[in-house]
């Protein structure tokens, strides 16, 4: 029977299938970090269990690490205890850990692909909803809770119900100055924060095929913002080129064998999806959110919407509440909204290509005096690569801050936070109330829009600077 990519990867990992029960799925890679793992390790210890496959488990410190003074002990004692707990747990159970200061440390969803550990056709889980990022390689990757983290540590499997599949086809060519981030923000606004609920989304079409691996990761990363636990893209030459030669990628004869196997990982032509959505990339423009969930977005050229224009009563109340929280008036042009802070980073847009896009616009320009701009690379490798290219100098010369790797202001668990009432343009993934700091107001944007906004001080498209890109 014809199958979709998601079904093929799923079916090849079923350890046990029984009627009226969820499938028992084998997990090829379990990524862990300090925030969602301590209670899982405690659970193992109290039940007298151990980690079944430490060799399929990788740990990093990312969510609450500071991005300044990383050679000093963490000042926040609660954060320090959490980091120390991860270190003790990894030592006790023999799990490889990339701690703060390590050359391979970084955001969990940035380091695994860059090491070549994330590979097509694998099943990957992590106690983090943005695990969907790894689907860019044709892996089936999804976020889990701490009870499930404990389950995977103990058994290397997970009981899970076979999801439905949705095809999101994005054809056409992206206009200049428009990137993967605008694409996914536009999609989420179109289908809503619950539109992908219960589905694994497969992104396909010419605009997806034209994306680099970095762009594909940005798209898959935000699948969860549309309610889908996983997003996937069939692997192709772009994927293989990215992986070849990376530390954990196969080499020699094993590489040839792997590529031959990866080429089979695509939805059959006659495969049937449970739902289909289409988007035309050529009609897209820079996109920005105005509300407090990622589905409340609009083209940057538009105005703040009027809640009364929403036909669904739930959407109307939600929009009213969002505008009050965001301190925005219906009808205000989004380009007139001024910001205090610009954040470039996160597992959505903290990779080298993202930093290049932002640096290209800042080269020879200055961050507006009213704006604080934070550039936080997704990993220490990304940081080193950026410094090799001189991007750090571009950011510093423009007046931005250049930091060390971590999740940083995406969720404000470390000191990088918005003050109450402060407004940001952020390349991260969530504009929820208080997400970047209590009372903070977030507009989600692409790296190019973030950089243009930093220069002008108000939400701006790259074209406003007279720039090509």
């Amino acid at each position, binding site marked *: 029977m014809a199958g979709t990519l998601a079904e093929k990867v799923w079916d090849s990992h079923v350890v046990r299938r029984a009627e009226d*029960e969820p499938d028992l799925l084998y997990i090829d890679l379990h990524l862990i970090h300090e925030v*969602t793992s301590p209670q899982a390790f405690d*659970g193992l210890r109290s039940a007298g269990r151990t980690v079944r496959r*430490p060799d399929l488990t990788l740990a990093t410190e990312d969510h609450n690490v500071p991005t300044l003074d990383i050679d000093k002990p963490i000042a926040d004692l609660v954060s320090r205890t959490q980091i120390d707990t991860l270190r003790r747990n990894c030592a006790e159970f023999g799990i490889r850990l990339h701690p703060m200061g390590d050359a391979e440390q970084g955001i969990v969803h940035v380091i695994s692909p860059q090491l070549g550990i994330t590979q097509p056709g694998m099943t990957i889980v992590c106690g983090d*909803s943005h695990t969907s990022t790894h689907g860019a390689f044709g892996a089936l990757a999804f976020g889990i809770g701490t009870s499930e983290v404990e389950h995977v540590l103990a058994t290397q499997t997970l009981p899970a119900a076979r999801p439905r599949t949705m095809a999101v086809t994005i054809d056409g060519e992206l206009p200049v100055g428009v990137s993967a981030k605008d694409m996914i923000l536009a999609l989420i606004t179109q289908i809503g924060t619950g539109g992908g609920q219960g589905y694994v989304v497969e992104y396909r079409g010419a605009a997806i095929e034209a994306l680099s691996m970095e762009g594909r990761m940005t798209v898959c990363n935000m699948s969860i913002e549309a309610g889908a636990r996983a997003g996937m893209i069939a692997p192709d030459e772009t994927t293989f080129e990215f992986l070849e030669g990376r530390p954990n990628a196969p080499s020699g004869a*094993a590489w040839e*064998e792997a590529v031959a196997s990866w080429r089979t990982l695509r939805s059959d032509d006659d495969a049937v999806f449970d739902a289909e959505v289409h988007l035309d990339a050529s009609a897209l423009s820079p996109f920005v959110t105005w509300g407090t969930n990622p589905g409340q977005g609009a083209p940057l050229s538009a105005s703040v919407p009027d809640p009364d224009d929403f036909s669904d009563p739930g959407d109307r*109340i939600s929009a009213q509440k969002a505008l009050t929280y965001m301190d925005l008036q219906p009808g205000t042009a989004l380009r007139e909204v001024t910001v205090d802070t610009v954040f470039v980073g996160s597992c959505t847009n903290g990779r080298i290509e993202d930093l290049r896009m932002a640096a290209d616009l800042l080269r020879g320009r200055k961050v507006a005096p009213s704006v604080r701009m934070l550039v936080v690379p997704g990993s220490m490798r990304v940081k080193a690569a950026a410094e090799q290219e001189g991007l750090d100098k571009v950011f510093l010369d423009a007046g931005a801050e250049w930091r060390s790797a971590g999740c940083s202001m995406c969720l404000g*668990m470390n000191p990088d936070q918005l003050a109450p009432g402060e407004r940001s343009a952020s390349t991260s993934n*969530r504009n929820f109330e208080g997400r970047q700091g209590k009372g903070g107001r977030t507009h989600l944007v692409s790296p190019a829009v973030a950089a243009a906004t930093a220069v002008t001080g108000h939400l701006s498209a790259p074209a406003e600077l007279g720039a090509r890109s």
Partner: protein
Amino acid sequence: MNPFTVHRGIAAPLRRTNVDTDQIIPAVYLKRVTRTGFEDGLFSAWRANEADFVLNQPKYVKASILVADNDFGTGSSREHAVWALMDYGFRVVIAPRFGDIFRNNALKTGLLAIEVPIRDVERIWMHAESHPEWPLEVDLVGNELRYGDTVTRFEIDSYARWRLLEGLDDIGLTERHADLITEFERARPGRLPSIV
């Protein structure tokens, strides 16, 4: 996990859509390494800033059933959202639709998450607002919600229901199939990445 059969309690109506897990418990509370004691973080921003927030109203302070709107528990995978609800005293959450990971976390931890159509949610809201003192009865044995003179049936995944009724631990269930896991591992291609 404690078995769940029938629960009677006060229902708190939460009339807002898209309640993400950052609202249920903000990230600042996630630095703790314990599994209990998260009740202070539950809806902390709304409890602090909105005098008329449902849990600030004396009649709902002892509520143990949360009746929410569409897309409850979206966003972050933090299981702390489930722990905070349970630590506060909630045993059941009812909504038209949940975030997938939240619902999974809830059902694995013993917080009964029930999806019912919005029209049923609206009826329960009206009941909870007009008769806050009358309890709502959630019967997982009979798949029924009972309040006043009304009886409403609800659907729930049969496997999740069985586990909740029996109070079974997932890991223990999976360990019964250890031989199948070992067999699967023997057949895995050797080229797959190994982290050493």
